[in-house]
């Protein structure tokens, strides 16, 4: 027995030896990396004992600022005077959960840091640490309009997103998603409040959305008929011989390589030339056109608008939109039925509100999609400009000739097409495209209702995408997303010149 007790002792010595070895590994070998990890909250304590720069809207409205903490162990705490209106782009700065959104992207400017020396004297005795303020491109009027329009939408749920861009610069003028959250509890000095808020913001609603997921940038949905704009562009840009394509007037068309039928929304017959089919959004005709254009050109055109690439917006967590590859659409996989459905933005095609706004912006800006951005300017606390955003192109999506042909067709959507019932005033010169994608959700048939648009058509200054997913099966893009689009374009037109 004594020998075996000795063996037990040896086993325990070995086990404790492993513990000591791992302690050395963590507390000596990996200690530096763990201690300096930005996600280590101890680095937050360095942060929260100093003031942090402000985040401002384009007109100077304060979106985030540091104030002396009233309780807790840190000297400062972050407050967000606008609450949930901007949280999904501004993000938060939490002592437990780290940073997100603009707070994360421009953290190096916002935290107290040493400014580069301006003189020899400063080089010898560095000036005290200062912070920089970040001014965003967001227009508070449009942001507020987006929130109110979505809240009063006619759909069965109020989940959705609105993105408005300046097509000439790529500046994000408004970006709002519902559900959203109040970031203030996440920046609370009380860890209990932070933890509870975090849990609440991770909870999902009946549609599967949680406040912590910004629908505008992080969720993708079938774009439905809004994709016909890209299908049309692919004809003019890549397959000009199909410009005079004319589809037979049909309610339903049989799809080749299958026994499926693709029917028009509402089961009304339609057909004719591209110019005749886009305003009423003719599904069977565009399906046949898509088959003629082919997977290769559809894929190429979708990618030239930014599909399958993460848009370079300056916040973390932006999702890429999806268009099937040529292989996905070859006869061994989805085949021609897949091509037909992809041409009308269904099946595996999925876009974020941001991506669809970029499509509208590309059309509005003569075919060049400008890189979207939120930061307009960074200024030091002394008022000096540290950095200014310079607009730069992201994608060349179409030729100016092509967009010049598409914009009038989108205007016809307003005058005598699917959006004629929305009531856009003629003075807006609105050019839009509706989208109503069939989206099965939780076993029920629902629709993802879209509208993309730009105004004024003669010299567009705003491009907007609206998505309201998982609406009733009878709802349409015009009916649910239309009024939101109208509110956005009207608000933009009413802005004082130069703002």
């Amino acid at each position: 027995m004594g020998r075996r007790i000795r063996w037990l002792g040896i086993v325990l010595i070995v086990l404790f030896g492993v513990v000591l070895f791992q302690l050395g590994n963590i507390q000596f070998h990996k200690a530096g990396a763990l201690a300096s990890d930005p996600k280590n909250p101890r680095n937050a304590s360095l942060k929260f004992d100093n003031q942090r720069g402000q985040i401002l809207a384009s007109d100077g409205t304060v979106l985030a600022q540091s104030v002396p903490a009233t309780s807790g162990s840190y000297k400062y705490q972050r407050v967000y005077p606008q609450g949930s209106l901007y949280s999904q782009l501004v993000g938060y700065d939490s002592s437990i959960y780290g940073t997100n959104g603009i707070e994360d992207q421009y953290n190096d400017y916002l935290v107290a840091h040493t400014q580069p020396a301006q003189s020899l004297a400063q080089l010898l005795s560095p000036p005290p640490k200062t912070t920089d303020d970040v001014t965003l491109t967001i227009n508070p009027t449009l942001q507020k309009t987006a929130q109110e329009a979505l809240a009063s939408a006619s759909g069965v749920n109020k989940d959705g997103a609105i993105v408005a861009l300046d097509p000439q610069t790529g500046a994000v003028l408004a970006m709002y998603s519902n559900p959203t959250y109040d970031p203030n509890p996440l920046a609370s000095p009380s860890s209990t409040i932070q933890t509870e808020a975090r849990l609440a913001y991770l909870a999902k609603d009946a549609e599967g959305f949680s406040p912590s997921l910004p629908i505008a940038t992080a969720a993708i949905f079938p774009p439905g008929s809004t994709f016909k704009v890209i299908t049309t562009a692919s004809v003019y840009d890549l397959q000009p011989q199909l410009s005079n394509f004319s589809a037979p007037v049909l309610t339903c068309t049989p799809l080749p390589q299958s026994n499926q039928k693709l029917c028009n929304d509402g089961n009304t017959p339609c057909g004719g030339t591209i110019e005749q089919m886009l305003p009423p959004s003719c599904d069977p005709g565009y399906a046949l056109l898509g088959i003629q254009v082919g997977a290769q050109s559809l894929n190429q055109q979708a990618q030239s608008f930014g599909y399958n690439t993460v848009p370079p917006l300056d916040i973390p967590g932006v999702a890429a939109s999806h268009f099937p590859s040529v292989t996905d659409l070859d006869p061994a996989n989805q085949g021609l039925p897949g091509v037909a459905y992809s041409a009308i933005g269904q099946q595996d095609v999925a876009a974020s509100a941001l991506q669809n706004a970029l499509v509208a912006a590309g059309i509005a800006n003569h075919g060049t999609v400008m890189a979207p951005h939120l930061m307009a300017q960074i200024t030091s606390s002394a008022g000096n400009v540290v950095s200014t955003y310079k607009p730069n192109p992201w994608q060349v999506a179409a030729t100016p000739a092509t967009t010049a042909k598409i914009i009038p067709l989108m205007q016809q959507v307003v005058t005598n097409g699917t959006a004629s019932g929305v009531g856009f005033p003629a003075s807006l010169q609105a050019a839009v495209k509706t989208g109503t994608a069939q989206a099965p959700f939780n076993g029920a048939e629902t629709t993802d209702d879209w509208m993309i648009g730009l105004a004024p058509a003669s010299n567009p200054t705003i491009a907007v995408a609206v998505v309201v997913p998982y609406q009733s099966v009878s709802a349409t893009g015009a009916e649910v997303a239309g009024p939101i689009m109208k509110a956005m374009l009207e608000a933009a037109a009413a802005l004082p010149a130069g703002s």
Partner: protein
Amino acid sequence: MILAHRSAPLRYDPVPQTHVRHRWLPAYERGPKPRRRTELGLLVFGSVITAALYALASLGAKSKLPDHLAPFLGVVLGLSLVAHLANRWLVPRANPVILPIAALLNGIGYVVISRWNLQNEPKLQAGWAALSVALYVVTLLVVRRSRDLDRYRYILLLLAAFLMLAPLIPHLGEDINGARLWVRAGSFSFQPVEIAKILLCVFFASYFAENKELLSIPTARVGNRLVIDPRPLIPILLAWGFAMLVIGAENDIGFALLIFILFIGLLWIATGRFAYLVLGLALFGVGAYLAAHLFTQFHERVSIWLDPWTQAQTAGYQLVQGWYALGSGGVGGVGLGHGIAGQIVPEATSDMIFASIGEELGLLGTSVVALGFLLLVGAGLNVAQKARTDFAKLTATGLTIIIGFQAFFIMAGVLRLLPLTGITLPFMAYGGSSLVANYVLIAILLRISDEGAATEAEQVSGVAQPGDRVFTVAA
């Protein structure tokens, strides 16, 4: 050493057995007690270290000495002294390092708990420490001979069964963090399995000691081969299966594993049959497979263990924050009073207390704690080696297995060597039941140690000590 069967003990004891049993309080033994002198020195040393750490924590956090430093040192010394005097009186020849190490670990743990000052944890823990010392003395008084425990093994088993079932009783038990392990009475909750582990250990030791021949020598015949008669295994397997089932129902994997290792370890040490270890490993595999499919908690813990970093904000949060605390501590630690683990790491005073220590006291502090437990293990096995009956040997070994593996499981869990279980770090983690149980545990260890040392003394002097009954000295 060959041990005679207990039914025919060799008596060297001049005092009639009945006389000893009825003496309510044992007489104080006069004469020098060198081991107790060593113990006293170590206890005073440990108390001073504890008080110094307490002062440092306050200096670090508030830049001033704690308000009640002298009374604090007084209480620590006082509690140590009470246990020490009880040792002088009741176990004068027992191992001199076990109590001081336990007291020092308890002291360091208390400093960390009081430093974070969560709700009223420090006050409660101080109360529990006082109660623990009281029950330590009571255990020494009641368990006058390790043989007494052997005699009442089935009563102890019943008591263990009741304790393990208690949390399942409606209105009495309560769930904490998904495990149903606590018994609540008013605002006071208790984890009965902590006491049950000691009772189970005593039962296993007693049963294995009595049946070790049957369990190790082939006596049954299958065909023309002699194999070990499986019948003596049935009651113990039943007891073990019951324990596992109950712990499984309470969703506590840590204790289930601890009891399992205790069972297999003692069985092997009693019999020397390697096959039991192999069988145990196979059973463990089956158990782990079933647990992975039956208990959601188990499944989740394994996934956190394999990759906490991708779920650092959700399920893996506690472990990741523990690592940040350990890493930020580095070699020397950030210093007592300068860390922030208590505000950030969930369960910084219980499950994650090892990480709290790692932040403020660094690799040096965590190594001291780990080595402290290793010393305790060494001392416990030393007691086992010198114990004079099979039962005492197995009990001491089992109790050491409990302390050693319990400490190993939770340290390895924090360090991600094993999945994290809710098992407590003995003597250090916040929690009354654990503290009380572990003091009772070392009281039994010291009782066995005293008996073993008495035998040694006899062998040297050839004279039996009064009050001792010696079963064997056959070499």
